[in-house]
């Protein structure tokens, strides 16, 4: 493949991703990460293409193992994303008004220790 064309495409997609498409409020950034993990499931396509064009038996078996693991991680990524979106639905139903703008990373305060 022509490196110039590849470079253009990478630059375009990076700009698209960095500028708008994946931008969300801070508390939805995690969903962006999970979405991107689900997109990384396209790794399965690469391993599948290797498997389908394999010339020898050894490569075929290695590529089949790679396809197995890629399919597994892609499915896991999708399940995590689904869980995240359903969690938002539940949270919105449970508390419609409160906690909408809670700070995202709530760490335990030192003086909140119970019983002391």
């Amino acid at each position, binding site marked *: 493949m022509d*490196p110039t064309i590849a470079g253009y495409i990478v630059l375009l*997609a*990076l700009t698209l*991703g*960095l500028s708008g*498409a*994946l*931008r969300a409020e*801070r*508390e*939805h*950034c995690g*969903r*962006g*990460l999970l*979405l*991107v*993990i*689900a*997109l*990384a499931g*396209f*790794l*399965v*396509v*690469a*391993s*599948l*293409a*290797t498997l*389908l*064009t*394999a010339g020898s038996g050894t*490569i*075929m078996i290695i*590529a*089949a193992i*790679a*396809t*197995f*693991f890629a*399919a*597994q*991680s*892609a*499915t*896991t990524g*999708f399940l*995590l994303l689904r*869980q*995240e*979106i359903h*969690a*938002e*639905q539940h949270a919105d139903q449970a508390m419609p008004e409160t906690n909408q703008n809670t700070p*995202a*990373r709530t*760490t*335990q305060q*030192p003086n909140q220790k119970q019983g002391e």
Partner: protein
Amino acid sequence: MGIGFYIDTVGFYALLIILVALTALTDPKKRPSWIWAIPIALALVLIGTIVSSFRGETSAFDWRPWLAILALGLGVAVAMRRPKSQKNTVHYIDLVRGISIILIGSGITLTLLGTIGWTQYSLAVSSFDLRLIAVIGLFIGVWSATTGLMFWLRTNEHLSGSDDPSFGQRLGQWLVLAIIVILGLIAVVKPDSATAPLILMMVLAVEWAALTALATRQENLIWAQAKHIGFIGAAIVMLGYVQASILLLAIGSLVVAGAIHFVRREGSFCQINRREFYENEHKEPIDFNHQPRD
């Protein structure tokens, strides 16, 4: 006609579906049923790939597509069997565990694909860039898989991590990384005698990944994992270059962009951010002003 062409023609439609899903998801008013667009797009590409391989060569008995379908089905089935936590009680640790599994799977895939790429392209001595990509892909794969394994063991409390590394430990890590880079360069420049440097490089990569994974704070695990997702995205870009697939180039760049967003803006998750971050997960509250006493 190469198989990359078929992947791309089907993949462009799939990418369109994904972009619609993406815009729908960033809009909170749209319904979350759009989530199903992603697996549908993925399935579309897979079906396109397999069908195109069926009509490609008409050999009497070609069982590669059946092997592909078998591997795919097994992978999906194993992932579905992952023990689900009860609804609405997802913790930070569950999420870290899930992403660890993803890192392990993707890392192993990248390692195997890098191995295949190396065995195919090391014969053609002139293709310097393909060899470089194979070696970098091998390194990223081994690194991600080992890190995922370490994090998984840590979240299951088989291993206990330490805090930030000391100066000596950090020096040692950089030294190991330098040796890895030198070995990789030797393998790329001299492909005739590359077997020993490559194997040594992979062993050292395992060690380096284990060292860095153990010296990550418990509360920083998710950021370290996001960085690895970014590296995996870079590896997908390189794979797209090797397989001449525009789809993989675009997807890999999007993955890198998403990881950068998450790391830079310290994103959080709806699954966990409405409750305590560390419920029964972190023994002591973090004390940043802690001074060691004699």
